[in-house]
């Protein structure tokens, strides 16, 4: 068994843009020794079927994520801010009909 140095390549998160103008989506992750190889590995793993037109790779340990404890303070306050949504406002009937 080989356990001298840890040669496990670092983990990278892969994001891809499905179409021109669309936002990037998370595809998954790959292991790679550096950014160039991470990009190539991402291409070979997550773009085998023409899934995207552009790729991002980010070292996984550089991702800052919210924690489950943040759920309340981060996301609940938005629940009662109906005025942020277009359905909050009424539109004159005549305008509605012309849509």
């Amino acid at each position, binding site marked *: 068994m080989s356990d001298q140095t840890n040669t496990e*390549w670092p983990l990278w998160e892969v994001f891809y843009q499905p179409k021109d103008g669309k936002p990037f989506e998370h595809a998954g992750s790959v292991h790679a*020794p550096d950014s160039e*190889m991470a990009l190539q590995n991402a291409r*070979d*793993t997550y773009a085998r079927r023409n899934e995207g037109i552009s790729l991002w790779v980010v070292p996984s340990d550089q991702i800052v994520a919210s924690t489950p404890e943040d759920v309340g303070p981060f996301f609940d306050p938005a629940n009662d801010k109906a005025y942020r949504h277009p359905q909050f406002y009424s539109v004159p009937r005549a305008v509605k009909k012309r849509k």
Partner: protein
Amino acid sequence: MSTLDTIPKTKKEALVEILLRLADDRIVHGHRLSEWAGHGPELEEDLALANVALDMIGHASSLYSYAAELEGKEDEDHYAYFRDDIEFKNIAMLELPRGDFAFTIARQFLFSAFSYFLYEKLIETTDDEQFKGMLSKHLKEIKYHLRHSREWVLRLGDGTEESHKRMQEAFNEIWMYTGELFDLDDADQVAIEHKVYVDVSTFHDQWKNLVHETIEEGTLTVPDSEQYMFSGARKGRHTEHLGRLLAEMQFLRRSYPDATWK
């Protein structure tokens, strides 16, 4: 002169000859790369090698198809499965056993670099639209193969002591087979006249520069090009390895010639 050494006379014959040379290179290279499936040095690299292998076999298949169309043969499989080793026109470098990862990378790099310059020139030159369309499509993939293998030459060359040694040995071992890349024969001359091939010596310097720069950037030494160079495989004078490769590739298809396998 070999018995199979017939010089093409018409443009069509010249094009068929070139299509088969290009396709044989690719099917044999693809075969060797496909042997890595399930045995790569890391999962990500398994995927990468399979991608290159798939591209190679795909390119061969479309080149064979065009040849079949021109010659009125049934399909691409005719050429891959029903010709013997002395009829195969691939260069010897590509039929050598897959070796270790360094050898696989050395071969892929040298051949991708050659293919890259050849395809660029050939796309500029040829007036056969179908051929040109095919080459343009393949060139995009070749660029990626070149990038992939070049990056690995740098990493293995300038990596650890062991990887450096293996990468250097791989180049030393394969070097006597690089001469064939730039051999020009009578068939090529006819093809050049008909604008279905190019004079490969016109990009020899470009190839050399790229190869030398990469090898040196990888802290390696370019092997001596004044050494003995293998030649003749394009005309059926192969190494002993091709026969075994084809025996494996063709056995099932040839054992049951009446069966449908598509």
